[in-house]
């Protein structure tokens, strides 16, 4: 009786969200898995079990393997770039320079723009057309006499094309990563820094040996956030150049094969693989942070 009185209200309060998550997240994950093992092609659902046939076909599907190659390059460049730039900006702003609030806002703004708009802006900036159609960066380069810098951006050869898209994605999210690192840096107690300074450490050594080791947790969350965004990126690439094999990722192929060609089973198989990919990053993270919490 006492137990019920103690736990009852809590369970009652979380029940709605438990049910919603159960149905709309785990229920549909299961449903998606079922579809990926079915023969559902065409508009009318069909759930006849075909085993892993759809997955086996994807392994032989040149369009799919090409898109996997693209997403790997994209993720490496985007995650690496955003982490590096975000960390660097946070390092600069951490000096409490004059007007740091202003710069913080400036660097954060791109995150407020929807990725569709980011894609439209960067599509224009990285347009590789010549002559009268020349726009954006290439035009800027030729105007200031740096023609040799002009290049084909997202129309360049693989794997460089998808790297250009990663620049746009990095531009949009570096500010957010900066905010994460900045919060982490500011969270480091001044006592620790003082102690290091008293021991005669230079400012650089204080930063490197005292502050950065305490940013590991921030780094971990930043990586997880960036990688899962990267795997799911759809709007940015779709709006920049849809159906271009140079930059197509599995999420884009999934959309086209599902809603243009009505291969619902193949789309579901790609979705499942994407989820497995995201889980491969997130599950170790959750496991790690749960263990860390228990240790406390």
């Amino acid at each position, binding site marked *: 009786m006492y137990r019920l009185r103690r736990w009852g209200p809590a369970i009652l309060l979380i029940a709605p969200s438990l049910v919603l998550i159960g149905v709309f997240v785990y229920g549909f994950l299961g449903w998606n898995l079922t579809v990926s093992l079915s023969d559902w092609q*065409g*508009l*009318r659902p069909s759930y006849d079990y075909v085993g892993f046939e759809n997955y086996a076909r994807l392994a032989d599907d040149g*369009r799919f393997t090409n898109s996997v190659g693209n997403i790997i390059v994209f993720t490496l460049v985007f995650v690496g770039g955003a982490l590096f730039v975000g960390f660097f900006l946070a390092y600069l702003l951490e000096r409490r320079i004059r007007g740091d609030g202003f710069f913080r806002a400036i660097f954060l703004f791109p995150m407020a723009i929807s990725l569709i708009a980011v894609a439209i802006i960067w599509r224009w900036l990285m347009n590789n057309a010549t002559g009268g*159609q020349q726009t954006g960066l290439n035009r800027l380069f030729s105007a200031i006499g740096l023609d040799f810098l002009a290049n084909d951006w997202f129309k360049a050869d693989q794997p460089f094309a998808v790297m250009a898209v990663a620049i746009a994605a990095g531009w949009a999210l570096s500010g957010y990563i900066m905010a994460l690192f900045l919060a982490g840096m500011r969270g480091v107690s001044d006592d620790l820094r003082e102690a290091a300074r008293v021991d005669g450490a230079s400012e650089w050594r204080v930063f490197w040996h005292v502050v950065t080791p305490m940013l590991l947790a921030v780094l971990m969350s930043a990586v997880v956030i960036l990688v899962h965004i990267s795997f799911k990126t759809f709007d940015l690439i779709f709006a920049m150049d849809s*159906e271009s094999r140079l930059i197509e990722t599995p999420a884009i192929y999934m959309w086209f094969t599902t*809603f*243009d060609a009505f291969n619902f089973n193949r789309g579901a198989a790609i979705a499942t693989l994407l989820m497995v990919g995201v889980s491969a990053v997130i599950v170790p993270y959750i496991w790690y942070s749960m263990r860390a919490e228990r240790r406390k």
Partner: protein
Amino acid sequence: MTTMSWRQRNRGAIAPVALAAAASLVLAACGGDDDGGDGEAAEELPTGEASGEFEFFSWWTGGGDSEGKEALLELYQDQYPDVEVVDAAVAGGAGTNAQAVLASRLGSGEPPDSYQRHAGAELLSDIQDEFVEDISWLFEEEGWMEVYPEALLDQITVDGGIYSVPVNIHRSNLIWWNPAVLQEAGIDGPPGSWDEFLTQAEALEGAGKTALTVGPLWTQQHLLENVLLGELGPDVYAGLWTGETDWESQEVIAALDMFTQVLEHSNIGQAAADWQPAIDPIVDGDAAYNVMGDWAWAYFETVQGLAFEDGYNVTASPGTEGMFNWLSDSFTLPIDAPNRDNAIRWLQLAGSQEGQDTFNPVKGSIPARTDGDASLYTGYFEMPLEDWTSDDVAKVGSLAHGTVADSAWKGEIDSALQEFVGSGDSAAFAAAVAQSYEDTRE
């Protein structure tokens, strides 16, 4: 029997007729739920006063398209003032987003009263999955079998059934050019064959011009189908989609090689993100040619404000003189449409001469019927109207716009083409297309 006479009959209704109409309305209301069950729906024209709702689903939200649809819906509203018209449109290029929304509505058994699909093979999955009613009885009833061209009726007939009403015709096999650019390069007129195009391309490039512009993948597919048509002729071309022409034959491989050569003289490395920006270099005088359907007319004429024949010009794409590569928008009658009678009234209007002559001049296309009022189609439109209604012009369906290949096969062709424009490997492309034809026949 046309819509007009049907309407007049209603208007002249006297008491007994009105009574019967009221009774049938009550009956219809009572049987509302099991109306439209599988194949049991009455194959007869609705009688009585029209009332209730009518929901039309389309992806027409852009300029021209949207106005054409609104003109037709307005006409419908005028004829049936008591019907509440719901215009459900989902924006998105070539209807991709609308497809997703529609697929989920059809799958969950909540169809609109009528929806838009390209006429031809694109409708095959809807037919196989039993989402749309066979309305060949309506074609018989309205006398449409005589007013639509035979080639069109052949293409949209599936196992003896017809499942949608084509309202318009767009022409795919057109080459658009800037006369000033040709003059500058010392070229008299557009190429009559793709071989001649290659020769012209050298001259154009010598004059510092791009010979041909392309846009995203679907525009490249649009170019491909017209190179194939120009190189292979209408019969062999038509056989590509029915399994009669061997994709891996010498002839087809040669035509595919030609496509690769043509692309080498295009700006494919700088392909624009959509078809309008692909046309811009022509407007600006940096490029000579673009192969695009006749929706480009509105872009040249209205958006860019150029004059036909002076600022821009157009003719059949190389090697396709006397051929008409068509695509068509059509409207369906979904099984279990909530307001089936109103949907039939809509289809009657869409298939009527009055309906098509209202819709098409605004949309920028020609009527699918051959008896449209020619005075409404001037300027550029004289040429396609004349060709469409002529028996001497061979009519074939478009690949890129859903006429000849069903969605599953076309999806595989898209993937293969993506690879092909990168590699230029004709044999591999032909093999992939032939293989996927077999794979998607199941």
